[in-house]
């Protein structure tokens, strides 16, 4: 019996980001298990915007956190894979605020078809382009999962504190949680982030929201563990051994991580993209989403949602 494919990414600022950005984030889709400690946890891409974060440090910017279902150990799952966990994070450095729009994988893209397929057919530029077109924004950074190093990363930081708000029982994902606070290991957080069967009505949509919650929880944990500018340096040095960069250097990674760790997780808004029934199994972007996008693109923050 095949394992369901599980993928998850935690980005810090990575910065921060944010990791920051940076930014700073954790992500997951569908994926597979154990990885060696030397495995690449994720890749941070500079896909647009200013050449250097330091050039316009107060300018709002956007980060795509993307999990794909590729698996180097499975011929049927070649790179770059379907983009099955999609989160667009807006960061406003001037105010220290951040917002996340969680995009269900079956959402119809502006160019037609499911948004997650664009990563498989056209790679990162294609899915970034579709999301930019959908939301009317320019994405500066993308954080993508390599082979699932998620559990190793979460375990290395000592687990992530997260509160479960409703009973979650899903044998396929391994989720078995009652409401309450948890310090989750990599395996547990993976199960939490994969569970969709505990939500008969919302399914993948609620799972997508939970992934956003996992991002915020990871940021909270990392922020607590990495106080101050020196703490960020220590964290970035650790991450850099497991993170690939594309169009960025270590200094930029540090800057992004530092920014991510200054964001207050309690003020991060996590909002699900409103969708309705589309053609076939697609989810159509709801008309109300245009108001959401307008709120997002003016300063990267969702004030009214």
């Amino acid at each position, binding site marked *: 019996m095949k394992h369901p494919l599980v993928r998850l990414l935690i980005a810090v600022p990575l910065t921060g980001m944010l990791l920051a950005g940076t930014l700073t984030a954790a992500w997951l889709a569908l994926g597979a298990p154990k990885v060696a400690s030397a495995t690449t946890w994720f890749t941070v891409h500079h896909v647009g915007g200013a050449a250097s974060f*330091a050039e316009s*440090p107060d300018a709002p910017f956007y980060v795509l956190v993307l999990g794909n279902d590729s698996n180097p150990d499975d011929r049927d799952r070649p790179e770059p894979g379907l983009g099955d966990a999609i989160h667009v994070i807006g960061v406003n450095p001037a105010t220290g605020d951040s917002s996340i729009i969680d995009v269900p994988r079956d959402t119809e893209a502006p160019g037609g078809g499911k948004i997650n397929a664009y990563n498989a057919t056209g790679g990162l530029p294609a899915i970034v382009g579709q999301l930019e077109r959908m939301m009317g924004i320019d994405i500066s950074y993308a954080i993508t999962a390599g082979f699932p190093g998620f559990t190793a990363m979460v375990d290395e930081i000592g687990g992530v504190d997260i509160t479960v708000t409703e009973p979650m029982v899903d044998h396929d994902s391994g989720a078995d949680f009652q409401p309450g606070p948890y310090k989750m290991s990599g395996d547990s957080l993976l199960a939490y982030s994969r569970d969709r069967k505990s939500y008969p009505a919302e399914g993948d949509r609620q799972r997508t929201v939970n992934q956003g919650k996992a991002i915020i929880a990871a940021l909270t944990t990392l922020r607590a563990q990495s106080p101050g*500018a*020196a703490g960020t*340096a*220590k964290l970035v040095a650790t991450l850099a051994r497991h993170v690939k960069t594309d169009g960025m*250097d*270590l*200094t930029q990674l540090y*800057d992004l991580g530092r920014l991510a760790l200054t964001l207050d997780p309690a003020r991060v808004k996590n909002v699900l993209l409103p969708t309705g029934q589309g053609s076939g199994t697609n989810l159509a972007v709801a008309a109300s989403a245009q108001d959401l996008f307008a709120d997002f693109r003016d300063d990267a923050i969702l004030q009214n949602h």
Partner: protein
Amino acid sequence: MGGVSPAFAAKKPTPVVTMTSGDVTVYKVGDAPDTIPDDVRTAVIATLTGYVNAATVMPLQQGAVDDAGLATALAPAVAARLAGPDRAVLVDEGLPRAKPTSKVKVTATPVALTGLADGAGSVVVVTATVDTTTTAKTTKGKLVIKRTGDLVLEPDNGTWKITGYTLNVDRAGKAVRPTTTTTVPVAPAAAPTPVTAAR
């Protein structure tokens, strides 16, 4: 009668602080040495010294910040923030000047430095934990300024500049007591204390 003697007027205010480095830690991606190279450390300390002199000492001695000194110490993005609310944290102005006969005294604990080294072994970021106390006798009484926090420095065309900060500044003493006799401010008001900023 009165005024400042030519000899005194020509006297250039003297920087009164020299920072020194304290504990050094390096976090590294590859096989970098466990210390920050001497040339980097020297450049970083020079930048920190220049910043304190330009932002704190010179305003107390001359009545205005040393813009040229700040431009040398601060990266452009940080310098741009001098136009915003963080100015009250970054520089000490709007305060009474030190008496000409009184020294501005700065004591600084050795600066703990933390370096981030890339895979090639080069230190690309240095963080500095600063703790300075500046005292001066002014025409309005004693002034004590305590500034603590972290500064982030990165290389910039052969020098090291401050690119980020988490600072807290606490100004105390008779010199910063609010006055009820002045109705028209002629200079930026001294910031309420303590004030903090992080970027």
